[in-house]
């Protein structure tokens, strides 16, 4: 259970965040959209990075998280804060964002499923078992294939709507 003192600390942090101006540079529409695109590309590249070794994977994931945390601050965490900390415009913005984020995530998952299906047909796997050997890097690639996008999609979607001070 969260104590009253912790609740007060959380509320103070959110109040600071809502009035923060130190990330105004990242709220300029062109800058915000550029960071959002770079973060989305890094999220998609992270699994590929891990397939090329842990160091490459960690480096690309680091780029993704740096972008993600800048966007969180730039969008004042509207995509993630509890409802009671948002006003009616922010709630409406978040609702619209989550519809778009769901559509984006669903498209990615459906695209992946169709790709796997077509790949299975193309290698004629019907009559024999298809074995995949997974090392630690490959397992990390599979984990980040899902973990990266689901972490960043709502905030990136919100950021792509454009920023303003």
């Amino acid at each position, binding site marked *: 259970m969260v104590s009253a003192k912790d609740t007060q600390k959380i509320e103070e942090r959110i109040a600071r965040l809502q*009035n923060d101006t130190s990330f105004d540079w990242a709220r300029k529409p062109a800058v915000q959209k550029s960071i959002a695109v770079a973060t989305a590309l890094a999220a998609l590249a992270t699994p590929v990075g891990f397939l090329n070794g842990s160091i490459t994977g960690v480096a690309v994931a680091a780029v993704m998280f740096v972008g993600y945390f800048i966007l969180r601050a730039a969008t*004042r965490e509207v995509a993630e804060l509890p409802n009671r900390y948002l*006003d*009616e*415009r922010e709630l*409406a913005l978040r609702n619209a964002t989550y519809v778009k984020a769901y559509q984006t995530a669903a498209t990615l998952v459906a695209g992946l499923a169709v790709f796997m299906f077509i790949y299975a047909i193309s290698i004629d796997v019907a009559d024999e078992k298809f074995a995949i050997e997974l090392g630690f890097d490959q397992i990390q690639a599979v984990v980040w294939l899902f973990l990266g996008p689901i972490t960043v999609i709502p905030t990136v979607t919100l950021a792509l709507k454009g920023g*303003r*001070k």
Partner: protein
Amino acid sequence: MLCDMGRKPKDQEERVINRIEELRLASGISRQELADAVGVHYQTVGYIERGEYSPSLVLALQIAKVLGTPVENIFSLEEEKN
């Protein structure tokens, strides 16, 4: 006709215009003060002033109360002005 029924598409809805900025400045109230008085973020007041967001009825009435004028003196549909 079917196209005359139900909700209009977003791009065909009448735009709500307002005099919040004019009345706020006349009252000597900052954007932050108005936002605090009605319980929204100061950015939201900016979006409303620019006509980029139409407030709920409750928020519109709260703004009118703070600015000390009836809500119809603040908000109107763009076509009414034209």
